[in-house]
C-alpha cells in the first residue's frame, strides 16, 4: 500500500498504471496471477469458468478509491494485511486500489492527510469504498476517539455515509469487539450501529482474514456489487459455515476422542478441543479452510480452542474461553450449570423423601368422601 499520498496531482498517473506491468516489476508471473484468480474463485465458491472474468476485472482500470479509517483498534487488521512475508498478489490488488487515506501507512501527515481524505470524499462521493478498522465510541458525544479534532463518530458518519460501501475489517469495526466488552466504558459500537444508513459489509475476526478482505474486493471488482451476506452482515462465502463443521479435528469429535488436559497425549495427537472450551461449534468463519498467515495455520490447528472471535460480543458471550458453557449468573464464578443442576436434583429428591417420610407416618388423612371397605 505504498501509493497513498495523493495530494499533489499524481492521482491520474497512478490510476493508469496497469496491473500486468506492476506484477512484472514485482516478479509475479502471469501464472501466479492466474493461480491467484483461481484461488479467489474457490474462496468465493464460484465456478472455475468465472476465473477469466475475475482476471479481466482485476486487470481492468476502474478500481475504486479506498479510504481506510482506524478508530478504537490495536491495528491488528492492518498488521495482518501488511505482515505478509512476500508481496502476495492479493496485497498488490489492494495496493493498486488507490488507498487515498490510511493513518497507519500513509506518507502524509497532519493537514495534508486530512486534505487527502477530504479530496476523495468530495471528488469520489458515492464511488469510493470505506474500510473501517476499530470500534466507534458513541458515549458522551464520541469524545473517546478523536482524530484531527473530529470524533470517530463524526468521521464515520461523513466517510461511511457517503461511501459506495463500507467494509469493516475485524470484529471491533463490525460489532464493537473488545472495546465494547462489558462494561463498555466508551459506548463502543460497530459501524452499522454507529451509521445505520451506511451500506456495510462486515468482515469480523480477530484479526480479519486478509484472504476474505481481498476476496470481498475481488467480488466487488468482478461483479460490481457486494457479496451476499448473512443475518449479521457477513459475506456467506466466508461466514456461511460453522468452524466446527469444517474443522480438521472434527473426526475426533464424532468418534468421541477429546482433549482433557493441555499437553496430554490426546492434545498432542490432535484430538477434539470441545471439552477445552473450543467455540468452534458456535462460530461461523472459514478459518479451517483459509487459515492465517498465508495459510500457514489457524488457532485450532495449532492446538488452541476457537475463541469465537468472529461473533458479535464474543468477549462477553464466549467467555470463559476454556469452558464449554458460560458461568451461571449469580452463582459465583466457578459454578457450572451441571453443579447447580445436580444440586437442584439432589435437593428435590431430599425434599420429597422428607415429605414421603412425614406422609407415611400421617395415618389420619381423610379423603373428601369416605372409603368403602
Amino acid at each position, binding site marked *: 500500500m505504498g501509493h497513498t499520498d495523493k495530494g499533489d496531482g499524481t492521482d491520474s498517473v497512478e490510476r493508469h498504471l496497469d496491473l500486468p506491468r506492476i506484477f512484472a516489476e514485482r516478479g509475479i508471473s502471469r501464472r501466479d496471477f492466474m493461480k491467484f484468480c483461481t484461488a479467489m474463485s474457490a474462496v468465493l465458491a464460484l465456478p472455475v469458468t468465472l476465473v477469466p472474468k475475475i482476471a479481466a476485472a482485476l486487470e481492468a482500470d476502474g478500481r475504486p478509491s479506498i479510504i481506510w479509517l482506524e478508530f478504537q483498534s490495536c491495528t491488528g487488521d492492518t498488521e495482518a494485511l501488511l505482515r505478509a512475508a512476500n508481496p502476495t498478489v492479493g496485497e498488490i490488488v489492494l495496493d493498486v486500489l488507490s488507498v487515498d487515506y490510511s493513518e497507519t501507512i500513509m506518507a502524509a501527515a497532519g493537514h495534508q492527510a486530512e486534505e487527502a481524505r477530504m479530496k476523495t470524499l468530495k471528488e469520489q462521493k458515492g464511488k469510493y469504498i470505506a474500510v473501517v478498522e476499530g470500534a466507534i465510541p458513541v458515549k458522551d458525544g464520541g469524545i473517546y476517539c478523536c482524530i484531527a479534532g473530529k470524533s470517530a463518530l463524526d468521521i464515520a458518519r461523513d466517510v461511511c455515509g457517503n461511501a459506495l460501501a463500507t467494509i469493516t475489517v475485524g470484529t471491533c469495526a463490525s460489532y464493537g469487539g473488545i472495546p465494547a466488552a462489558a462494561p463498555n466504558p466508551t459506548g463502543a459500537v460497530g459501524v452499522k450501529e454507529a451509521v445505520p444508513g451506511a451500506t456495510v459489509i462486515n468482515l469480523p475476526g480477530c484479526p480479519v482474514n486478509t484472504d476474505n478482505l481481498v476476496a470481498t474486493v475481488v467480488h466487488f471488482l468482478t461483479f460490481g456489487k457486494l457479496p451476499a451476506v448473512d443475518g449479521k452482515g457477513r459475506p456467506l462465502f466466508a461466514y456461511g459455515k460453522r468452524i466446527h463443521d469444517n474443522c480438521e479435528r472434527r473426526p475426533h469429535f*464424532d468418534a*468421541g476422542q*477429546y482433549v482433557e488436559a493441555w499437553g496430554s497425549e490426546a492434545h498432542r495427537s490432535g484430538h477434539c478441543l470441545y471439552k477445552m472450551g473450543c467455540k468452534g461449534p458456535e462460530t461461523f468463519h472459514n478459518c479451517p479452510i483459509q487459515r492465517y498467515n498465508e495459510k500457514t495455520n489457524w488457532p485450532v490447528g495449532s492446538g488452541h480452542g476457537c475463541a469465537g472471535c468472529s461473533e458479535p460480543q464474543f468477549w462477553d458471550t464466549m467467555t470463559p474461553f476454556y469452558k*464449554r458453557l458460560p458461568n451461571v449468573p449469580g452463582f459465583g464464578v466457578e459454578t457450572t*450449570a451441571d453443579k*447447580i443442576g445436580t444440586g437442584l436434583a439432589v435437593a428435590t429428591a431430599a425434599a420429597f423423601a422428607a415429605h*414421603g417420610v412425614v406422609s407415611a407416618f400421617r395415618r389420619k388423612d381423610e379423603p373428601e368422601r369416605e372409603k*368403602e371397605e
Partner: protein
Amino acid sequence: MGNLSEKYVWEVPVRVTHWVNMVCILTLSVTGLYIGAPRTLALTPSEYVMGWVRFVHFVAAYAFAISVASRIYWAFRGNRYARWQEFFPILTREGRWHMFETFRYYTFLSRQIPHVTGHNALAGTAYAVVFLLYLVMIVTGFALYAEHAPQGTLHTLVGWMFALFSNQGIRLTHHLTMWLLIAFAIHHVYSAWLMDVKEKGGVMSGMFGGYKSVRERN
C-alpha cells in the same frame, strides 16, 4: 357416601404422549449429558460414538417435539380432563381455591385430601409450567441443531433466537432447563405415588389403562 365406579379419564392420546414424553426425556437427558460433557470412549478416529449419541439425541428430539405438539393439539380436542383449562386453574376463582386447598394438604396444614377426577389444581398448574419448559427445550434445541445449516429451513424457523439471545446463552438455557425437568421428574413420580397411596384414585394405573376410581355422591 358414594358408589365406587371406574371412570375413563385419560384418553389414548394423553397416555401415548405421556409415555412418549417420558421415554424421550430419559433418552434426551442421558444423551444430552454425554454431549455436554463427553468422555473419550473411542480408541480410533474411525469410531463414531459421539456421532451416534447425537443421532439418537436428534431423533428423540423430533419424536419429543411431535409428541408435545400432538398433546397441545389434544388440549383443544380431548375430553375435559385433557383440555387446556385443566392446566390453568389459576384463571378461575374456584380453581384458585382448589390450588390453595391442595397446597394446604401438601404442606401438612390440612388433612383433607383433595379428590379430583382429573389433575388436581396444583398438578395442572405444574404441567402448564412443564409444557412451557418443553417449548423452551424444543426451541433452544432446534435452534442449536439448525446451526449446521445456517441457510436452511430449520434455521429460518428458529434463527430469530440468535437475534434475541447469545449463542452461548441459548446453550446454557438448554442445559439448565434439562436439570429443571429432571427435578420435575423426581417431584412428579413422588407426587403421583403419594396421591396413589393417599387418594386411592388409582392415578398410577390410570396412566396405563386410562381408568380412575371415582366415587359418586348419591
